């Protein structure tokens, strides 16, 4: 089981966290939604697995490339 670091692909703010630690997710399923450029931008894992860590909270500012969650898959 590999630990996959999930990075934000854009600078913005965490609008809504839609998963929780321990939850199973499918490939392409959103972990959270960011707000940037007036758009709601999902953060997705390319691979399915189990959410092991969520490293941000709603309202946090995030930078492009910042690791926001760890998925084990």
């Amino acid at each position, binding site marked *: 089981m590999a630990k996959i670091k999930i990075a934000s692909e854009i*600078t913005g703010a965490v609008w809504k966290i839609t998963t929780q630690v321990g939850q199973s997710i499918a490939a392409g399923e959103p972990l959270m939604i960011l707000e940037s*450029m*007036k*758009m*709601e*931008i*999902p953060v997705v894992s390319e691979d399915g697995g189990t959410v092991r860590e969520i490293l941000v909270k709603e309202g946090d500012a995030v930078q492009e490339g910042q690791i926001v969650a760890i998925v084990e898959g």
Partner: protein
Amino acid sequence: MPHEETLAEFEERRARVRSMGGEAKLAARRSQGVLNARERIARLVDPDTFVEVGEFGTSILPEQSADTPADGKIVGYGKIAGRMAAVVSNDFTVKGASSSAVNGRKIAHMKRVATQRGLPVVFLGESSGARMPDTMGARGMGTMLGNDPMQYQRMRETPWASAVLGSCFGSSSWYACCSDFNVMRKGAVLAVSSPLLVSKAVNEAVDAEELGGWRLHAEVTGLADQVVDSDEAALDAIRTFLSYLPSHHNEPPPRAAVPAGSGAEMAGIAGLVPERRSQVYDMRRIVRCIVDKDSYFELKPRFGKAITAGLARIDGRTVAIIANNPLHKGGAIDTDACDKATSLLVMADSFNIPLVLLVDTPGFVIGREAEVRRAPGKIMNFMNALSLVTMPKISIVLRKSYGQAYLNMAGGRNSDEMAVWPTAEISFMEPAFAASVVTNAGPGDPGYEAALQKMQRETSVWDIASIFAAQAVVRPDQTRDYLKQMLETHEMRMTRGVGQHLMRTWPTSY
């Protein structure tokens, strides 16, 4: 010598060449599920069409000639879907398919004939770099390398396609980067030099996958246009890629039959775009709906994902698609997406392929990270490339089109026809940001809401249609029909479908 003996020698020599690097090495490949160089050619070309050239070439050094069948690079001509192509297949079982004086001549011959006669070139890559110790020393270098000034020159007279099918250092990686299409098999490596040399020369411990594996080139460098799981899938991808291209730059791409069921999903296309303007969606579903059934051949799908780009057919005609994908970065165009769009523009310009642009972008990504990545330069490369394409350009705005991105996505006179969906909104800046900048205020502050409402009203498609800055307002469900008609209208009748190729020397590997 009697003819019988002469022919027996011929057959014996041929059998030795066909045995390649020996049964032990070939068996090891079979056990790994990897095709050998001859099996790859057989899979690539139509049955019984391959004619080998230079099969009796060997190392230029007499003491190595017995150990170097075909000198490690198998070349020749064969048909791909009925059209002739030149093929270079690296035989890793012979001295790691290392580059030598003789096999360099064989490749040069393939490229020369392909260029003169109008044939695509396919490179099946797996090579260890320049042959050592032959190239060592000043005499070695002078003999083996640098004797062909055209070796890595690219003028795009004919399409080049490459597959990275094993360790690719040296010429295999160079040709992959010079090609119009590069497919990579998982497990293969594309790099300047091997992990061993890296560890010796710069004391960096790095494994091959990290150094030049598929994830690096699919997601970070963009040097892989597609990634597949097997040799067979890579060879099939090259056949598919070439099916969209002309054999050379002086003819239009071939026209294909239109598959049954094409356009069958058009009635539901508007429903694929969320009504709430801040919500994202996957533009690739829109593309697949519009183009001929199963014809979208996406390029660099994991790189610069805010734009989806690729080849497709509409009414059997090859088109290049450049479309914002709001699913990633909300459709905000980053520098990788600029590079991806630019490289497809170069290909479209070089090989007479009309462009279709589908627009839904809030603009370019801004911020320090974007500037560090040379965003202004990338945006202008993209814009200049668009302006240099002499093929028909048709742009359709689905939803947002703002600022400089409006120009880059072929807004206004940057396309031959610009159409808008009734859902489109066009302005210099996202109204919420503009209202804030103009009033120096935010939500709830005096003046802000009134400014915002006015700016939102002014993004209407009816305004741009009324001044004929858009040539049509198109119902979403009629988009395919509109494009079919525009592609026919804008056929390049005066030049038999051939453009000016103003970017044929542009590099695309950046």
